[in-house]
């Protein structure tokens, strides 16, 4: 894992979860250690967002970047739990 310097931050709008996740994934190369995704504006995710999160987790693992999800509500947390994604992200309240 790289040492964190200035983390990249992405605020996710509930209406554009997939594009923002794709953008975050594209920038993983340039991230220094960790990427923070702010989910506090997201109330629900759909299967395409879920797929994108799986991709994001895979890419982050390959590039040894830590992805931190901030403000994830418990409903989305449970979705991630059900598909075994919670252990692949870090969570911040």
């Amino acid at each position, binding site marked *: 894992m790289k040492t964190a310097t200035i983390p990249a931050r992405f605020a996710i709008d509930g209406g554009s979860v997939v594009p923002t996740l794709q953008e975050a994934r594209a920038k993983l190369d340039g991230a220094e250690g960790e990427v923070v995704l702010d989910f506090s504006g997201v109330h*629900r*995710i759909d*299967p395409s967002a*879920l797929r994108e999160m799986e991709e994001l987790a895979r890419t982050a693992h390959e590039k040894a970047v830590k992805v931190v999800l901030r403000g994830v509500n418990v*409903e*989305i947390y*449970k*979705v991630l739990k059900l598909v075994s994604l919670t252990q692949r992200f870090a969570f911040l309240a």
Partner: protein
Amino acid sequence: MNEKDAPLSEERIAYLEGLVSQARAAAAVFTQFSQEDVDRIVKPMVVAGLEQAQYLARLAFEETKIGLMEDKALKNMVATEFVYNYVKDKRTVGVIREYPERRLVEVAEPIGVIFSLTPITNPTSTVLFKCIMAIKTRNAVIFSPHPSAWRCCSEAVRIMYEAAVKYGAPEGVFTCLESHTLQDNAYLMHHKDVGLIDATGGPGAVKAAYSSGKPALGVGAGNTPVYVEKTADLDMAVMDITISKTFDNGTICASEQTVVIDDQVYDRVLKKFEDLGAHICSQEETELLGRTVIDPATGYMQPMAVGQNATNIARFVGIKVKPKTKLLLAPIQGVGREYPLSAEKLFPVLAVYRAKSVDEALKACVDVNHFGGLGHTAVIFSINEEVIRKFSEVINAGRIIVNSPGSIGALGGVYNDMVPTFSFGCGTGGGNSTMDNVNVFHYLNIKRVARRTEAHMWFRVPNQIYFNMNAVENLRKFTSRSTLIITNPSLEQMGHVDIVRRCIPPETQVRVSIIPDAEPDRKIVEQGVEALNFYKADQIIALGGGSVIDAAKLMKLKYESPEADLAELAAPFLDIRKRVVQYPTEKVNHARLIAISTTSGTGSEVTPFAVMTDKERNLKVTLADYSLTPDVAIVDPQFVMSMPKGLTADTGIDCLTHALEAGVSVLASAYTDSNAVQAVRLVFKYLPIAFEHPQDEEARSMMHNAACIAAIAFSNAAVGVNHALAHAFGARFGVSHGRANALMLPHVIAYNASVPTKFVPNPNQRSYVAHKKYAMMADLLGLGGHTVDEKVKKLVSATEQLLDQLGIPRSIADLGISKEEFERALPDLAKVAFDDPSWRSNPRMPLVSELVELFRSAYRGRSLPQPVRASQEPTVEEKVYV
């Protein structure tokens, strides 16, 4: 190697994994949906299914060549419209049911991924049904249709999926296996991400599902008997059976397989079948049919016959029938492998059995039921309720259809109010996990949210208590025609009986029954009841200590309820409200029981307890019920003025033990605490005086009141481990109850005041308060101390001092019992004490090892264990009433 055991290719595994992964993601996303979200999706799915009902029926018929297109269309409509009608208002998301009075809430949890096998016989209707159930319950489904019904099923899945996703369902919520094999099914059945297998189909599919080790709904074959009893509406019976057995050419597994007809109406019934287009087979035709449509090797129906119409079957077999024959009726003489047509036949062939009696008919139906139809469906036509009841008792079937067609009746919602379904649970008889009509609630994990409920408490005392000197005068208030005084010889000699007699109104016939001064046994009770009956007593006066009053309580019980079995009523119980053995409530004599106590200890005059010696079993048993409580208690100190010192001391400590144990009991309440605390205060103040100055009227009076008040407390809050120890020790070494209590008391206070190894579970206890309550009592006694621990120690010391003042031996060793003898007895003592119900209300649950240590402490005497508790704890300002 079996096909299902052959290894899957990597490509195939990747394909199957993709299906599961997609379904898993959909199911995960689905968990975020609300009830409203779900209901918004279900309705357009149902409409889509209804719109495509005929299309799907046609596809199904063309592909399977089974059944009738028209009936399949009807089944598709039932699977959508009727099922929707049932589920539309059902809550299946979040809180689904609430029981406020029980403080229970049920919350739905989806299963996740369901792997579903669908049959060839009802292919599209089953898919439509399961899709609606899955969406309603937020589950994803991977369908595995019967290979011969794959195209129609996958089309049904597509129609449902498109409608669902259009209205918001997660992508991937339904998928359908393509060109699958048994290997695929086996792989998915064992997949870790599949939560449930819902197998509707033949015995093989069901067995595979249950063998997978996964939770499964496996519903399959049946063998439906139908009994046409002589009282039946025969026209209705024949028409309904014909409708049912020809519906979709008999492919519904709930359809009738063997009709058992009462002899008296047999010929008429067959004629009516003929009139409606049935062909009655001759014996030769029946044998030919049996050999042809049932596989002689397996005893199962031949697949080529399934869902074919009657004329085609007849033609194939070589039986000549009229054109448009609907049904082939084949008379049989028995049930089993030697009568092939008594097996399940999913085509319009119906076996017929002539029964000479109801008994024979029921037995024939039981035989059919047990010949492959356990747990499934049975039908009866009758208006004789007794026969219907008997039928329902002897037949093991999840659906017992009365006066209606079996197949459509079992589907539910058309001919009856059963839950509409296309999956029939067959219970354990059919190797199934459910006997229900499978419905949305089988697609849910239902969580119970159970809020804490506090048990209802009570506070019961006799109707009337008279106290203070000469309270016995109050007997004049009670009119009686015939009164029996129960007492013992010494009290009569002391003149107490005469005092009582003088207070009874002169018009009352008074008789006296003298009983031994010992705990009553069955014989004493029976003699008393004889006397009560002889004198037709309407009033009983118990004059004496605990044993006399207890005897009178039992005599009254048997006098009022002669059938009462005292041994049975002494059965143990954990919670008096849930006891197994109930006391009789009917009374035949309505006699009044007045208890006049002549000792100041047991308080039996106000308690619901009676101790009896069971000579046959050589033990003492305690009967407990509020119906035993005397109607009137008289607490008159004149009867205790002459109590000897030893008895004063022992009974006084018994009273103190009652008060202290009731005070810290898990059943204590503010009501009992007030009595317990007051009794403690009275004992500490007046017992030494009564002991030293027996003629001190005030002290005697207050101690007499204290005993009654303490008894009121423990009648409602019960006692504790001190009594359990004392009962065991007293019985083993012949030590009086009060003295045995005294030997244990300081040790038990210290024990209860320390941190329990185990707590006694009780919803009314919100925290452990025994030590605080002891401290509160110490405060009320003005014993001093700053912390709870100090106050508890002060209470222990004060108790020790009181025992010293009363000259009570301070250790078991002081009684002259050798250490060796005591140690030999110790295992038994601990066992008996642990078996004693008294400790069940103790704040600490005693371990047997702790009982042993308590006994040893009592043997040693004064060297007390120190209460183990933080000494800086604040004192009694905190809430101590539980």
